[in-house]
């Protein structure tokens, strides 16, 4: 029976076109432990070579394969088809490009703005040491380093950004990933641009726009909680504003 049910093809709908486009239906053979990315790859290699999509590592490290899977943003290389569709109910697998980003073609989005916002949130490290100085010592169990640890494993996949309603409502909002990056630097004791960074992330297109509804934290495939970092930024920025350090 198991062998037989594995034979029933998987029904897939994939977004084709740019900003204007439509879903096109495909049928893909089911395989054991099949990932959503495997399905897309099959469509491109065996059914329609003109399908555009992004991937690289296939093991959850590069962050390039994120798509909207049945309406939820996910990393597709590490999402099993069986996790998101029920074979017994003959569920359709619907794949679309990530929300909140302009569509280039099919499943590829233009991520420029997403990454530009990292730069706007002052996501660059500003050091003070030169190659002639000693290494700085940051104790792994210091409170700051622990906060950095909780935020640092971001792979830049954009899942959180695509899941954030505030980005949809307020397109200039920096979004969870950029603010999470800023938070990891705010806690970097070696960084020398802290006030500049707080200035860049404060305000109504920065951390203060966040509604704390935690969708980003729920969806982040790396288990990062941007919401927690954003709350931290709100507290620090408000304190700095009251002291007059943000003017």
């Amino acid at each position: 029976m198991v062998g037989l049910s594995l034979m029933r093809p998987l029904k897939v709908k994939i977004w084709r076109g740019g900003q204007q486009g439509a879903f096109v239906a495909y049928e893909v053979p089911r395989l054991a432990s099949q990932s959503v990315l495997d399905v897309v790859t099959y469509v491109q290699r065996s059914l329609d070579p003109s399908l555009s999509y992004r991937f690289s590592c296939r093991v959850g490290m590069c962050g390039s394969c994120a798509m909207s899977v049945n309406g939820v943003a996910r990393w597709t290389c590490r999402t099993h088809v069986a996790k998101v569709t029920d074979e017994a109910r003959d569920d359709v697998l619907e794949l679309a490009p990530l929300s909140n980003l302009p569509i280039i073609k099919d499943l590829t989005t233009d991520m420029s703005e997403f990454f530009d916002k990292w730069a706007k949130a002052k996501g660059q490290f500003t050091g003070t040491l030169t190659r002639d100085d000693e290494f700085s010592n940051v104790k792994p169990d210091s409170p700051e380093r622990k906060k950095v640890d909780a935020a640092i494993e971001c792979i830049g996949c954009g899942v959180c950004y695509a899941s954030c309603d505030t980005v949809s409502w307020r397109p200039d909002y920096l979004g969870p990933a950029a603010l999470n990056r800023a938070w990891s630097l705010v806690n970097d004791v070696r960084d020398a641009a802290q006030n500049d960074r707080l200035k860049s992330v404060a305000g109504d297109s920065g951390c203060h726009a966040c509604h704390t509804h935690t969708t980003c934290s729920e969806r982040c495939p790396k288990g990062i909680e941007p919401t927690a970092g954003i709350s931290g930024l709100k507290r620090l920025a408000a304190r700095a504003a009251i002291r007059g350090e943000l003017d």
Partner: protein
Amino acid sequence: MKASTQAKLWYAQRISAMLLALCVLVHLVTILYAMRGGLSAAEILARTRGNFSFAIFYFVFVLSVVVHAPIGLARIAEEWMQWRGRSLHIALLLVTLLLTVLGLRAVWGVYVG
């Protein structure tokens, strides 16, 4: 609006939210208590008039509403109606004035008459 102003507004809204949580609770418990006791409007007014702590409590209540509501309305206008800038600020200023006048008038009504 300047980032530092936004940050301060956020702080003001947070503090006023804490006050509101407390005030609403006290307010509701008072209403339930008065209603269960079957007090009439006249009996309630007899208790509130000239009661200074009562007036102070509602003064703080009104104040936190006046701070909290316009900041929240600004968010809704910006995000759901794409209404920003000067015209929004003027409209919110009017809302703030209205809330202040109505709120304080009500406090005055139950305290003085």
